[in-house]
């Protein structure tokens, strides 16, 4: 199975945010809110750092 960087990052963010949400919150509404927030934060931060590093790759 060959996945590109973004697909791997999505799998990582999905698994970790799902587990974190259930580990840290007890109410279902809090879990959903925290899980979505963590998932999006993983993606936004990773893409942001990627763009910050972009000038150094050329």
């Amino acid at each position, binding site marked *: 199975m*060959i996945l590109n960087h973004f697909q*791997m990052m999505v*799998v990582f963010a*999905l*698994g970790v945010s*799902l587990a974190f949400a259930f*580990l840290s919150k*007890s109410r279902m509404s809090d879990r959903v809110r925290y899980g979505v927030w963590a998932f999006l934060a993983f993606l936004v931060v990773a893409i942001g750092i990627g763009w910050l590093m972009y000038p150094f790759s050329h």
Partner: protein
Amino acid sequence: MEETNIESPAKSNPAMAILAGMLGWLVPGLGHLVLRRWSKALVYFVAVGMLAVVGLLARGDVFSFNSTDALDKLGFFADAGNGIFYFLSGMINTAGPDVSHASGDYGTRLIATAGVLNFLCVLEAVQIALGRGTERPVG
């Protein structure tokens, strides 16, 4: 759906804590299953299983204890947290590891992440059985 039982009195059960810890390590989520935390058991199995299986199918590297490199040994302890997925890694990824591609390199990280996540789940199962933290043992 809500299974948190905060109101019930804390009843510490060390034998159940050991059993839940061992089962939770062997099969992610099984520790919570014996503690009757159904949704947590399912979510932990899916989350850890997804990371481990995708990591293995992406031909990530699984470290062995016999490695002489200190970082590889650290990687072994992270990978060992996967329990059954660690033991079945050779069957899931029959082609063997290939970290010459980015996909395989990411796969290695996914497998280690899954193992460490499962250790966190095991610790939570032990805490629940011991009546510590925010949750209390059922019954």
